[in-house]
């Protein structure tokens, strides 16, 4: 057996552009086939005479290959390289065969030939468009429990992947002067012309090679040579130019705002064994000054009874399989058309030795030229006839033909039927760019009219049919000079939209408009009858155009049928929106590198690795990873935290506070600026001192808090919450730049400049003392709420005497690269003195024992400083600060607002749930009146009991009262208390 016959019995010797010696093997539904390199799955299977490829969505009707391109609605397959690289819903007409591919059909059970779901087809009279809106309503629960699961199982197409995708995807931002979408005659010509001007050009085409329609159109000559050959030469010339990038296997899937386009390049799906560094697909995000749309046109099918059998396909597709792939779509091919272009397909097939049963032309007068040629080739032409039915269960075996308006029918045996109703310009990208279309009644097509962006359409997508005109138009669009001429064999005429003879509103036949979704002409008529008069309603009611091909074939037919039913001209019925993407795009491509470690940056402090080595567990706080607790061998979180809490109060603890936001506020007006941004007063703060500050927005609610140290008259070191740092800086910049630009002050983020090592506890001073130079640490010289610039381990440092535990506390700020070394040295000494490392959980417990709040946990954006018990931090003297007016609004000043208080459970062992709701009467019926909720709740090892903080309506007036926290399984009685649980006098902080 020769290689070519091996690659399929329908392979035509001498036809096509593939090399017979270069083969690839693949399986389809378990059976092995040989293909030629360059074959699509569709062409490879057709070469073996395989037409049945899938089942439709609703009726599970057998379906074959309708097209030879991305508009394919039927031939959707499951393609896998290995178990993890399995891809559902792949169009057989786009997927190139690679050696070893495992391909299966979809949406059938138990097999493609015998599919139980096909019973739906027999029951189809019940399943008219929208039938599900009218039934399945009783009993109430039955929809969700019975009907919906059945519908869901029978719907859907492919099976989702079940393993994590091992492939990777790449991304590239790129800019150019001109992007040319489509590399057919028009696109190539425009690109040649534009390239000649020296502009940067990106030429994009979705097929593996350039050429567009020249893939199937073997008769057109360009520049004196065969069109396809000219195209390859033109592409080679363009590729050699430094200002041109040619991207094939690349689809412009979206044309967005301001010259932004999304492209997806398929890099490896056609390769048998791709290299491991090669991405499967690459996302190109292009910003182009100008866009030349040369997207061509798409042939339409004919809408007639049983027009969906395997073996029925577009004429241009048959031509493409023959001329490009060297495959005949049948031995005895029928033609049904309303357009001259199908004749050329018949001519090509005939010349290749395929028998043409007849050309059935819905028109009374086909084009003269094609008619003459048909006569010359001895092809029977039935003008003014229609195909009114077809037969053949798994593949067409005959077409039934009738003269228009006549009831006499006759069957003609065929094993394939090629169809054409004419051509629809591909205006998808134009429309996505928000350009306005106009309807050209004579040619019955929508064409670009008003452009919304700097783009221009050339060629078939612009309705330019004449080759010479098309070339001129493309040269002009490119703006350069190119000498080029072309020659067609035939001028095409004709075309129709809507249902053909025998498939009108009164005909009870299944004439498919949208193949994948099984929408028939009847369904569209029904929608109109039911009052759906907007094309959007019709689309949604019938689901016409909503399948994975997004209506590339069906939209115009559906529109024409609706127009006829409504008795309104097409432009008045409207056209549904073309939305991105042009063809489906892999999520993996859209997200490309954003996965795993690159999904979202994990911010780590300079001490992270050391903490990890000490066994720390980490928690996520914003983007940061913070040490949560440090379990020792055998400890769970609870016992670790208990130990840490006790050790800090008994001895001392070391804590990584580096993530706190830091902002350097510098300038002569720094204090004045802070006066405006915080509720507190800052001009009274002396250099060398710190103060706790509260920031509100104009609405008066707490926005952030933190300690602010004054380093000099004109320099403050502001700290913010960990998560709040970026938004606080933005908030400050907003006021500084736009409301208070007269102030001489500047802001710089220094969060990451400093590593911050907090040492807290009775022995804190003793621990850090030996490391510090240039600052007397005695209480007198450096009391609580002091700040100093000094040296720690020989490194310039900022030392704060602050406490978030109620114990003597220091925060050593050293330049970040020194953080690890200082932390290590401090920890070695601390450990030797019996201190511990502690994490955020212990920090939370210790601060709760002291009644210190955490903004974002104890407050939630609806809490004023007074609600939080921090009314003292709101200056009464300042004439202005951000929030001054908001705080005075009636609801913020009213009695009975929720206030932060302490809660002690009656049972000291009972730890409340954070988020527990508080009521006065636990026995009231639902819905209950809730007084507030538990914001913080911990076991306090230091107190030997639980403690909690809560927001309670009128809370401070309720101190001493008993309230209740009803849980699902029990009700917990609590006493309202003050917020300070440990060291109420506050002596410990001063050491």
């Amino acid at each position: 057996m020769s290689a070519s016959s091996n690659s399929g019995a329908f392979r035509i010797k001498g036809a096509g552009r593939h090399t017979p010696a270069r083969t690839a093997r693949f399986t389809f539904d378990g059976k092995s086939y040989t293909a030629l390199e360059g074959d699509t799955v569709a062409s490879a299977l057709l070469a073996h005479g395989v037409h049945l490829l899938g089942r439709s969505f609703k009726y599970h009707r057998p379906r074959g290959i309708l097209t030879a391109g991305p508009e394919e609605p039927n031939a959707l397959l499951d393609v896998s390289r290995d178990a993890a690289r399995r891809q559902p819903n792949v169009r057989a007409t786009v997927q190139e065969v690679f050696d070893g591919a495992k391909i299966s059909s979809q949406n059938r059970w138990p097999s493609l030939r015998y599919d139980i779901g096909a019973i739906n087809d027999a029951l189809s009279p019940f399943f008219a468009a929208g039938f599900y809106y009218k039934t399945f309503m009783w009993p109430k629960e039955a929809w969700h429990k019975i009907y919906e699961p059945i519908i869901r199982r029978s719907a859907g197409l492919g099976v989702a992947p079940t393993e994590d995708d091992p492939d990777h995807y790449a991304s590239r931002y790129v800019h150019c002067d001109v992007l040319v979408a489509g590399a057919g005659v028009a696109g190539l010509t425009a690109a040649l012309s534009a390239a000649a001007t020296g502009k940067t050009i990106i030429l994009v085409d979705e097929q593996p090679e350039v050429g567009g329609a020249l893939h199937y159109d073997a008769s057109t000559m360009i520049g004196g040579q065969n069109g396809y050959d000219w195209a390859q030469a033109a592409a080679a010339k363009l590729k050699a130019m430094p200002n041109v990038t040619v991207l094939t296997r690349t689809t412009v899937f979206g044309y967005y705002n301001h010259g932004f386009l999304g492209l997806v390049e398929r890099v490896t799906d056609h390769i048998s064994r791709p290299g491991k560094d090669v991405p499967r697909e690459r996302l190109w995000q292009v910003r182009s000054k100008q866009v030349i749309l040369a997207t061509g046109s798409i042939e339409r099918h004919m809408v007639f009874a049983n027009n969906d059998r395997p073996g029925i396909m577009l004429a241009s597709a048959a031509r493409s399989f023959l001329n490009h792939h060297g495959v005949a779509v049948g031995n005895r091919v029928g033609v049904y058309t309303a357009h001259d272009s199908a004749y050329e397909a018949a001519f090509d097939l005939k010349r290749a030795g395929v028998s043409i049963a007849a050309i059935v032309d819905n028109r009374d007068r086909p084009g003269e030229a094609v008619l003459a040629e048909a006569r010359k080739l001895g092809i029977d032409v039935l003008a003014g006839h229609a195909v009114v039915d077809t037969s053949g269960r798994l593949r067409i075996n005959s077409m039934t033909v009738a003269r228009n308006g006549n009831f006499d029918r006759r069957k003609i045996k065929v094993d394939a039927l090629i169809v054409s109703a004419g051509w629809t310009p591909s205006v998808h990208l134009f429309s996505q760019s928000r350009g306005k279309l106009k309807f050209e009644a004579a040619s019955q097509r929508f064409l670009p009219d008003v452009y919304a962006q700097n783009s221009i359409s050339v060629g078939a997508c612009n309705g330019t049919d004449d080759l010479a005109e098309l070339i001129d138009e493309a040269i002009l669009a490119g703006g350069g000079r190119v000498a080029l001429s072309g020659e067609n064999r035939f001028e095409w005429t004709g075309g129709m939209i809507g249902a053909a003879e025998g498939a009108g509103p009164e005909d009870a036949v299944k004439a498919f408009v949208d193949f994948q979704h099984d929408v028939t002409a009847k369904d569209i008529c029904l929608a109109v009858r039911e009052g759906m008069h907007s094309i959007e309603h019709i689309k949604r009611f019938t689901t016409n155009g909503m399948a994975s091909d997004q209506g590339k074939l069906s939209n115009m037919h559906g529109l024409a049928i609706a127009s006829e039913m409504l008795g309104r001209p097409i432009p008045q019925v409207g056209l549904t929106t073309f939305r991105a993407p042009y063809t489906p795009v892999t999520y993996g491509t859209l997200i490309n590198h954003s996965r795993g470690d690159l999904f979202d940056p994990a911010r780590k402090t300079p001490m992270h690795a050391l903490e990890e080595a000490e066994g720390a567990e980490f928690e996520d706080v914003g983007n940061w990873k913070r040490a949560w607790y440090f379990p020792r061998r055998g400890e769970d979180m609870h016992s670790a935290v208990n130990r840490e809490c006790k050790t800090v109060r008994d001895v001392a603890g070391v804590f990584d506070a580096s993530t706190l936001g830091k902002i350097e506020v510098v300038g002569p007006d720094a204090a004045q600026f802070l006066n405006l941004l915080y509720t507190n007063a800052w001009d009274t703060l002396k250099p060398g001192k710190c103060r706790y500050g509260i920031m509100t927005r104009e609405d008066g609610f707490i926005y952030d808090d933190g300690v602010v140290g004054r380093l000099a008259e004109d320099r403050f070191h502001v700290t913010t919450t960990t998560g709040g740092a970026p938004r606080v800086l933005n908030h400050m910049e907003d006021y500084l730049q736009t409301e208070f630009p007269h102030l001489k002050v500047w802001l710089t983020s220094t969060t990451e400049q400093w590593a911050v090592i907090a040492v807290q506890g009775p022995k804190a001073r003793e621990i850090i003392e030996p490391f510090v130079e240039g600052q007397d640490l005695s209480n007198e010289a450096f009391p609580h709420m002091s700040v100093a610039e000094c040296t720690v381990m020989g490194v310039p440092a900022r030392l704060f005497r602050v406490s978030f535990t109620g114990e003597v506390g220091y925060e050593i700020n050293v330049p970040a690269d020194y953080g690890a070394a200082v932390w290590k040295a401090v920890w070695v000494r601390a450990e030797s003195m019996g201190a511990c490392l502690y994490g955020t959980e212990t920090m939370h417990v210790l601060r709760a024992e002291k009644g210190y709040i955490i903004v974002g946990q104890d407050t939630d954006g609806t809490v004023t400083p007074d609600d939080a018990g921090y009314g003292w931090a709101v200056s009464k003297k300042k004439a202005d600060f951000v929030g001054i007016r908001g705080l005075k609004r009636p609801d913020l000043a009213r009695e009975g607002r929720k206030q932060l208080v302490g809660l002690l459970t009656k049972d000291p062992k009972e730890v409340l749930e954070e988020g527990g709701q508080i009521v006065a009467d636990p026995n009231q019926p639902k819905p209950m009146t809730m007084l507030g909720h538990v914001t913080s709740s911990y076991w306090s090892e230091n107190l030997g009991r639980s403690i909690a903080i809560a927001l309670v309506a009128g809370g401070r007036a309720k101190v001493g009262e008993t309230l209740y926290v009803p849980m699902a399984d029990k009700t917990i009685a609590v006493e309202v208390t003050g917020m300070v649980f440990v060291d109420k006098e506050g002596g410990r902080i001063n050491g």
Partner: protein
Amino acid sequence: MAELGSHIATRSLPLSGVHGGSSMVRLEPAAPASRISLRVRAEDVPALSSALGVDLPVKPKTSAYANGRTALWLGPDEWLVIDEGESGLMTAAANSGVLHSATDVSHRNTAILVSGPGAAAAINAGCSQDLSLDVFPVGACSRTLFGKVEIVLLRTAEDAFRVEVWRSFSDYAFGLLSEGARDAAL
């Protein structure tokens, strides 16, 4: 306890030990440098320029280099000044005698050097700016976004860039550059 105080802390760099790159792109952490974030009003620019020994550029997206110092225009009153040696930047700025704000950010930022014929393509894996030589010539600099993190990008040669990034974002930046470098080699 002088014996402890005399322990001088050693420096640990955020990207120490990382490596990446491809046949077309070389990726390496830059040597430690001194940096200040400098804020100056237009009228005081000359004074700061002379104090620092490098002319602060006033044209957007440009930088200037002199005496081992690079001044990068980041905004109309904002520069990043990088000194390849051991600082003196804060003192020099303070000596200008005019109103300004200088903040030491030497340790806030770290830098990655990206070089080779695929350097621009690697950066364009995550950076939306046009890095063609016409638009982003040698010496051009800009604060921008790289994937999900902010960077300051400086073109040091036709095929070389310096990527300044905050230290906790540097793992991410290096990782994404590695991915970009891998793709740029194809």
